[in-house]
């Protein structure tokens, strides 16, 4: 299966208005396919995070098209985009964004609760996913009681628990040591291998480039090049 899961056409996004406006995306074309782990790399300020935000509908674009699983996010109403995100997108953030007063189990069950599942069903599913990521024995732990790697695994469990088709990761290994980073990417890789899924990772971390199927290289608000597996490392690293 090599169909397009995500497609951007000539996407423009500016911040601010008038003379002070700044172009973050200057007509980006980008695709990510099903069962693909796609990485987006580039220098700071090149628009990676903005691209990630518009791909999952957390930011509105000024012009262009964003089609995710056949849905044009640019033309959808905001509440539909929110519902679409809830059902189809899983998030892994650089700072984990785990609520400190909720246990690992509670943090992981949130996407299911948002999608209307009962507490009992949500917690049962969350416990199963935590078990899959190797934290079955830490379901009652609070984030402060977990190491950085364990917290990121909780975040991965939270991103996977509602079985989303698109997983968005923003610098998932930035706060982790090499071993933890590899463990996280292995988990993501395993989840991306499923046919109906797509994983998009924004990263600066060259240690994890080998996990990517393709790498989109961004510069100055544009996708400069897309490299197949291994090409990017040969060129730059």
């Amino acid at each position, binding site marked *: 299966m090599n169909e397009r899961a995500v497609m951007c056409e000539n996407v423009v996004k500016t911040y601010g208005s008038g003379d002070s406006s700044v172009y973050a995306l200057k007509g980006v074309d980008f695709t990510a396919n099903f069962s693909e782990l796609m990485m987006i790399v580039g220098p700071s300020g090149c628009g990676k995070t903005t691209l990630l935000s518009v791909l999952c509908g957390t*930011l509105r674009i000024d012009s262009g098209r964003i089609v995710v699983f056949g849905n044009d996010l640019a033309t959808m109403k905001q509440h539909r985009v929110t519902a679409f995100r809830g059902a189809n997108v899983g998030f892994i953030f650089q700072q984990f964004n785990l609520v400190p007063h909720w246990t690992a189990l509670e943090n992981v069950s949130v996407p299911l609760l948002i999608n209307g599942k009962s507490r009992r069903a949500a917690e049962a599913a969350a416990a199963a996913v935590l078990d899959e990521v190797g934290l079955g024995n830490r379901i009652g732990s609070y984030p402060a009681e977990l190491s950085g790697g364990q917290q990121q695994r909780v975040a991965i469990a939270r991103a996977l628990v509602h079985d989303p088709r698109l997983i968005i990761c923003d610098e998932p290994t930035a706060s982790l040591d090499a071993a933890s980073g590899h463990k996280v990417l292995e988990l993501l890789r395993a989840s991306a291998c499923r046919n109906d899924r797509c994983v998009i990772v924004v990263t600066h971390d060259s240690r994890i480039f080998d996990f990517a199927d393709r790498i989109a290289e961004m510069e100055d608000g544009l996708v400069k090049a897309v490299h197949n597996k291994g090409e990017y490392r040969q060129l730059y690293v």
Partner: protein
Amino acid sequence: MWRLALKMLYGDRAKFAMLICGLGFCALLMTQQSSVFCGIMMWTTALIRNVNVPIWVADAKVEQANESVPMRDIEVNRVKSVAGVEWAVPLYISQLQARLNDGSFQAIQLTGLDTTTLIGRPAKITSGKLEDLRLPNAVFVDQVAIEKFHRKGQDLSIGSTFEINDKEARVVGTCEVDRSFFGQPYIYTTYDRALEYAPPQRKQLNFVLAKPREGVDGKSLAQQISKLHGLRAITQDDFFWQTIWWYVKNTGIPISFGTVVLLGIVVGVAIAGQTFYLFVHENVRFMAALKAMGARTRTLAGMVFLQAITVGLTGYGLGVGAAAIFGHAVIKKGQPPFFMTPQILIFTGVVILFICCLSAIIGLIKVVRAEPAMVFK
């Protein structure tokens, strides 16, 4: 999500404690001060409640229960002559000095009841028989008299004596009545003997107490009586509220209590508003993450309101509870006066909820404005 919203709230123990302390203090100030205010207002109407008759007739210039302009004794018969009056009796009420056995003085409210019927009698007799008031020099004393005389070294009980205006007064019984506004003890005797105790004046009748015949409306009968030259009749309810309004309008009591209540509200808004805003501010990143994960704004709004209302109700419960404990303690002593009405509880609850909703709305603006994309920054 609601349970998790509450866990988020309880998890930040310092802020939660600060919030409930602020709101609790606000509720305590409002409830306690309003209850003391109502207690004072109840004191102003103690005479009306102690005497408890349907219609009061006084001089036309009398505005409230604690002032009296003496009338001629003949006014009793004039009132009796009005069609629809079942009975009309005189009432003497005046401030006098009682002289204790050791020579010290105590201000008293001497109350003279109609000698034949003893209408206006105290509702709770704690010792003796009220009919004994017809014995020579007989008086009944209330609990305040017992307390105040005791403080001055004289214990009052049946058989005790003291002097009023150089005439002997012999205690034949004791009673419990509502305290007067001025805090002076009530000494009950018959109307005729009250006139003997009182310094001689041309006019000595303070009030005429009346009751309408069965089927006659009290208000219309009061209007009829008021047509008599120089008299003003008023129903018990109207007299009660008129007395309260007189004190509200003509004294600084409502302003001083109102200022403290307002201070309570300001403290509540300042502490609760700021702390809740800080709480939301610190959690806005998590709220934005929930938004990114698909939580609708109304779900987040519900979470914020639930948190605000929870701290509000907890603070309200603590504040009102503390005020009730205060009230329970002081009611036994009799002062300061404390009268907690359901309206005070409702008013305090509404103000606390208003403060919480205001805080929630301020916090919610931040949550609504939070871009879900901020979680990537």
